[in-house]
């Protein structure tokens, strides 16, 4: 018989290296003569999209299109160290470093613009839609491309910057664990609907509704991509995957025997974004990479219990474990 149930998973996640370890990211910025810009960071894009996020940050600040930003990453001869692409830290950490560096270069542009347009202060200079000029006075503006070109060729002025950002945490006390080990924290909840076949113990995840507080979504497409990818990994972790060992040897070091979810194993996913801005994050952003998969685990396990009344306490929740628990429950055990 097939029975359905829903379950809830609710999680938190401290981002960054944490524990007072200096979590530093760095970025170099150069404004080109034609008004486009380069951002150089050591942060590598492993597929999650950090390079796109950095391009967006630079574009936002400089009033350019993201495609006008060249992001160069992960070459130790060229780019500054921006730490590892892990710990859900690149949007927040390197994003902050990029933002700081871009703002420095931007300030130089504004100062040059202020002189050029006889504006009393650099703050009065605006960069927007590829133009630079006096805020609110389109007659005193010019394309950034012309200004950058003119600045170098007529005045020898360059707009180049470098900056670093360090996340602030403290080490925990080794006696009692007290301290402020991470910042910022991301939060998430997911609801899973599953269908359990009581004959075979097979679980099918029908739907996941996922809501994640990531501070601010810099790129909506990529946010949805992280959530869906996290859910898929959560499904695999909860139901399918296991490195089987025999005396320390891996029994299943092959994709025919180490099974990850296929397109047919992943449920319909409804992603919802909660933007509770983080003051210290770039535009309020915290991060999402790792948190996306966490609630899935519990949502599925709790949904199995809701569907058939057995509590699986060891992952993965295989059909074998579910059938055994169902049998135990029938014999009058607690099922837990």
């Amino acid at each position, binding site marked *: 018989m097939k029975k359905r149930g829903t379950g809830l998973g609710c999680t938190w996640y401290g981002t960054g290296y944490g524990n007072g370890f200096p979590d530093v990211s760095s970025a170099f910025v150069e404004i080109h003569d034609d008004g486009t810009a380069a951002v150089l960071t050591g942060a590598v894009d492993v597929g999650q999209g950090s390079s796109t996020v950095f391009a967006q940050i630079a574009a936002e600040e400089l009033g350019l299109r993201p495609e006008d930003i060249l992001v160069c990453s992960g070459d130790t001869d060229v780019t500054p160290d921006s730490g590892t692409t892990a710990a859900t830290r690149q949007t927040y950490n390197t994003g902050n470093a990029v933002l700081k560096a871009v703002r420095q270069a931007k300030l130089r542009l504004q100062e040059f613009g202020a002189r050029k347009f006889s504006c009393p202060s650099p703050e009065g200079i605006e960069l927007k839609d590829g133009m630079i000029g006096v805020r609110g006075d389109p007659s005193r503006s010019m394309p950034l491309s012309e200004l950058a070109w003119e600045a170098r060729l007529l005045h020898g002025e360059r707009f180049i910057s470098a900056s670093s950002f360090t996340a602030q945490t403290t080490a925990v006390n080794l006696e009692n664990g007290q301290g402020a080990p991470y910042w910022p924290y991301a939060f998430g909840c997911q609801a899973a609907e599953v269908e359990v076949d009581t004959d075979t113990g097979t679980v099918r995840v029908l739907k996941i509704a996922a809501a994640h507080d990531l501070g601010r979504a810099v790129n909506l497409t990529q946010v*949805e*991509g992280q959530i869906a*990818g996290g859910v898929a*990994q959560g499904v695999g972790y909860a139901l399918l995957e296991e490195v089987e060992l025999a005396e320390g040897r891996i029994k299943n070091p*092959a*994709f025919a025997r180490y099974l*990850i979810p296929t397109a*047919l194993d*992943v449920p319909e996913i409804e992603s919802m974004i909660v933007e509770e801005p983080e003051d210290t994050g770039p535009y309020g952003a915290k991060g999402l990479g790792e948190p996306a998969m966490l609630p899935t685990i519990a949502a599925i396990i709790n949904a199995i219990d809701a569907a058939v009344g057995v509590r699986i306490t060891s992952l993965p929740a295989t059909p074998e474990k579910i059938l055994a628990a169902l049998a135990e429950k029938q014999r009058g055990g607690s099922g837990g």
Partner: protein
Amino acid sequence: MVELELTVNGKACMLKIEPGERLIDVLRQRLGLTGTKEGCGEGECGACTVIMDGRTINSCVVLAIQAHGRDITTIEGVGNRIRPHPVQRAFVEEGAVQCGYCTPGMVLAAKALLDKNPDPSPQEIGAAMSGNLCRCTGYDKILRAVQRAAREVTGT
């Protein structure tokens, strides 16, 4: 050594190969078509998918000699920056690409589907893409991209 004649991306190729060479190795190493990826080496992940005579195959579990006289399409033969294939455009615009390692195989699987069935149902899309593993995207945007490409192909 045996003579191998095949058509790859519309071009006739003649090579001398060992009978035991896999199609993927001939494509990647001898023809330099490195868009075809190896993920598992046992026909379980679909990263090495190519189209042979209109049907997708895993080039890691097919001998090159089995492609003798046949027509092979690899990712390099599917489209380019000037004229992207609708599937490629849809993958980019939907955000179906993350790490990109499964992408060539996914694009070919989708292309082979739409070549045969330009208006597939969501179930047919899921089934057609079920031989290609992805670890990043959760498949959601990949399946949407195939739907979007189908809409473009059929003009609906």
